[in-house]
């Protein structure tokens, strides 16, 4: 599976395979795609972003991350398909081409590389990072409770053995810090999209509070239109709303942090499924999931492109 043509997008892959596929994507589209290492994980694995750019310097950009919770395998699998879609549609799809002529897209396919590797080698249901917690037998921090967005507030656990443990301090997890440093040093992100999996939701801030963000109405409208397009393909039903209102109050989340940094178009997806398979969504559903998700992602990206701020 060394070339993008023979790669099986309808299968789950190990971290090494995905990393090597990223190289082949860069090789196939050298004028559009590049790979950047933004740091190392706790266990010293490289953390890569794919940059889709047609030139310029620090153009307004869109961030998409997949796989922050390691057991949600369909999230990075969808990311791989999406990255390939963006590369192959540039020059063919008019709206994507127009977007990439003035904006950049950054994709981080494996945001929690240690956790992902661990789900392949030891515990398929692992969710967190793999860092050691001093004074505890239990390892790992929930990387989506570790951002500096009312860190340690409601909806996060102080118990290192919990799957939603927030960690000792905001950005204590090197995986989170690497992303934070990258986003801040870039300074021109207009959209931040985090892709999770399970239970079919499209959410916007806040998670730490149930009060509405100033842009709630606009985000809700964009989200509903995006989901309408997603649903049009296979009838997959999504709920749209703020994290706090449609799942639960959760502090320290990534899109709350990005929104508070001024990145207005901050969204989080929860991809399929309805609960029949949980995190073991059959591989034959990867491409349908990615294909429908693309319609929503594209809608959000087009909106961001047309509504620069």
């Amino acid at each position, binding site marked *: 599976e060394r070339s993008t043509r023979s790669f*099986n997008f309808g*299968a*789950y892959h190990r971290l090494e395979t995905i990393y090597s596929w990223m190289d082949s994507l860069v090789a196939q589209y050298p004028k559009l795609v590049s790979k950047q290492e933004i740091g190392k994980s706790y266990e010293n694995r490289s953390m890569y972003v794919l940059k889709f750019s047609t030139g310029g310097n620090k153009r307004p950009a869109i961030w998409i991350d997949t796989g922050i919770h390691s057991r949600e395998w369909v999230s990075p699998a969808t990311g791989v398909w999406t990255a390939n879609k963006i590369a192959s549609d540039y020059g063919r799809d008019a709206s994507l081409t127009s977007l990439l002529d003035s904006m950049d897209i950054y994709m981080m396919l494996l945001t929690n590389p240690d956790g992902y590797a661990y789900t392949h*080698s*030891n*515990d*398929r*249901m692992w969710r967190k990072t793999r860092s050691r917690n001093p004074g505890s037998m239990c390892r790992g921090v929930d990387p989506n409770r570790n951002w500096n967005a009312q860190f340690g507030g409601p909806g996060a656990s102080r*118990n290192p*053995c919990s*799957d939603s443990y927030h960690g000792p301090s905001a950005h204590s997890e090197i995986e989170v810090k690497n992303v934070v440093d990258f986003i801040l040093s870039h300074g021109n992100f207009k959209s931040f999209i985090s892709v999770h999996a*399970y*239970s079919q939701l499209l959410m916007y801030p806040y998670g730490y509070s149930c009060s509405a963000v100033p842009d709630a109405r606009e985000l809700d409208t964009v989200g509903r239109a995006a989901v309408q397009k997603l649903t049009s393909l296979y009838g997959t039903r999504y709920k749209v709303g703020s994290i706090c209102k*449609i*799942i*639960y*109050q959760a502090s320290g989340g990534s899109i709350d942090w990005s929104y508070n940094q001024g990145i207005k178009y901050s969204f989080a997806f929860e991809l399929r499924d309805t*609960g*029949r*398979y*949980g*995190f*073991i969504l*059959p*591989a034959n559903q990867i491409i349908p999931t990615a294909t429908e998700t693309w319609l929503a992602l594209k809608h959000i990206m087009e909106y961001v492109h047309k509504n620069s701020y």
Partner: protein
Amino acid sequence: ERLFVGDQVIRINVESEEQIQALQALESQEEWKLDFWLHPVSADLPVDIRVPRSSLDSVTEYLQAHGIPFSVMIDNLQELLDQERAEMVQNQRM
């Protein structure tokens, strides 16, 4: 490598605030090692819990004692994982 033989995933369609509270209390029962896939927060959303085989009886008793009906979504998690692994091996061969 960790096995999940006999682990079940159950779904509860919450009907009342009392049921939510009883399920939230269940979340703090650390010795049962429950893995909440969907947490108890409102009557609008189901609650999904992966229950290790060793805790199945205790959890069933608890839910019955509180009058909380549930259905089994995944009967044996390991079976699904075995299928997934076989599929991955086959894909690698291809």
